[in-house]
């Protein structure tokens, strides 16, 4: 289940007990320095699929729609996919946004870190920056993956920090649930899943 790990403005009702290395991963890899008019939060998801499958989905900056259900399509500008690349994301109906322009800030295949910043679009999420990391763990004696996603964003005029975090968390929870469904399905379909890792 999706849980919440303490960021600087995390709400008490969503804090879950730190298990294993979660707190250490958050401390080392999910540092944000929010200003007075920003909010930040961190969410975790445990997925019953090996880390290489989950990471292969997460790292595709050019194809977020493979696991993000709100994405209709995505076009990366330019020929080279590298830190600094921009993608134009078109969003499905049912959300208060139609487009988002996003910059690849960080992509580390050894440490399994993806960092993305929003630089344009009609979502009202100014200076949105997120970090998502994946980590191997054992679930019921089988290889699983701990996914941690954190973000920082400006609080828009007319909204509160609480509202802004609640909205962003709702979208991220949906993305992480879908990531679990897609990767667990891939794990079931992969004949070598039991002996990986």
């Amino acid at each position: 289940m999706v849980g919440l790990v303490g960021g600087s403005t995390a709400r008490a009702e969503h804090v879950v007990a730190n298990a294993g290395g979660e707190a250490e991963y958050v401390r080392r890899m999910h540092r944000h320095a929010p200003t007075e008019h920003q909010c930040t939060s961190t969410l975790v998801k445990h997925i019953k699929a090996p880390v290489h499958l989950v990471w292969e989905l997460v790292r595709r900056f050019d194809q977020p729609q493979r696991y993000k259900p709100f994405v209709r399509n995505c076009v990366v500008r330019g020929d080279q996919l590298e830190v600094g690349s921009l993608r134009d994301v078109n969003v499905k109906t049912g959300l208060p946004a139609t487009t988002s322009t996003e910059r690849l800030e960080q992509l580390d295949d050894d440490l399994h870190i993806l960092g993305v910043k929003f630089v344009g679009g009609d979502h009202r999420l100014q200076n949105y920056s997120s970090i998502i990391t994946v980590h191997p763990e054992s679930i019921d004696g089988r290889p699983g993956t701990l996914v941690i996603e954190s973000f920082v964003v400006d609080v828009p005029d007319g909204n509160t920090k609480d509202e802004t975090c609640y909205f962003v968390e709702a979208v991220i929870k949906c993305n992480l649930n879908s990531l679990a469904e897609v990767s667990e399905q891939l794990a079931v379909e992969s004949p070598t899943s039991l002996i990986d890792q």
Partner: protein
Amino acid sequence: MAAAMCVDDEAASAAAESAGVDKLDLGAAAGGKRSVYLMDCAPVWGCASTRGRSAEMEDACAAAPRFADVPVRLLASRRDLDGLGLDAGALRLPAHLFGVFDGHGGAEVANYCRERLQVLLRQELRLLGEDLGQISCDVDMKEHWDELFTGCFQRLDDEVSGQASRLVGAVQESRPVAAENVGSTAVVAVVCSSHVVVANCGDSRAVLCRGKEPVELSIDHKPDRKDERARIEALGGKVIQWNGYRVSGILAMSRSIGDRYLKPFVIPKPEVTVVPRAKDDDCLILASDGLWDVVSNEEACKAARRQIQLWHKNNGVTSSLCDEGDESNDPAAQAAADYLMRLALKKGTEDNITVIVVDLKPRKKAKSNS
């Protein structure tokens, strides 16, 4: 072929009209008119749908003439039926189903509703007909309709989410119909000779044009509706203004089929309205918010009524009553639906548009030449 309503005796009809009768005669009067419960009621409808300026088409609509027989006990109390000399237990009325389903996040749920809701409803009406014989007390008929539609919509939602299995071809399937962010509105009308029954979930809408005035048969499920917001917040959810009031800041409606990522805040429970038909009923309009966002109820009623009248004035009575008219779109009602769709486009709606117009006006059968 029969028009919307049959009138046996023109003289009796004229007498009733001159007497200023507002309601249709419910009994077998001495004048020879048949009870409204025994009249046939041919479907007379038109449907227009377009993706408009959107990149995707996520609307769906359904028209199912004579999709089921409705037990008369769902339309009148036993006491009233006994007073008319009608056998309450056995009598059933042919009914037609019309529905508009406005999808979001994808078209899968709207398309599923279009096909599946009428099947579920037909099954429930058949079962209910068997049960009604056992009911000795006079439970309010609206409670029956509430229970019937609530059960159907819940089953539909359970099938969409994979919580209830469904048949795909000949195989039992238990995977979800769509991703968890896909959902749909559902506004449906059951039309028979005596009543119009509407069930609504979401922000599509049904409006009855009666005596040239709009009568709302549904109330949009918007998150800032006071009772909806209270229900959501009581469950621990939030309504946040983010380009409009939205559940969790995301979804612009408070009820839908699907959208399981927003459970338990967004529910599939419909609100039901049961309306006896009246002599001055003009037509019924069901449409998605692609229409209602830019056209008022008053304007839609006025335009639909005028377009139907214009069609009949320009085409005469005979040609609208061809044999195939019984089961396909009526050209006058179709002209009205097309007009409303084009009106919404002209007014700049950005969304998909789907409009169904059901002509409720009795029109005399053409005299045969043979």
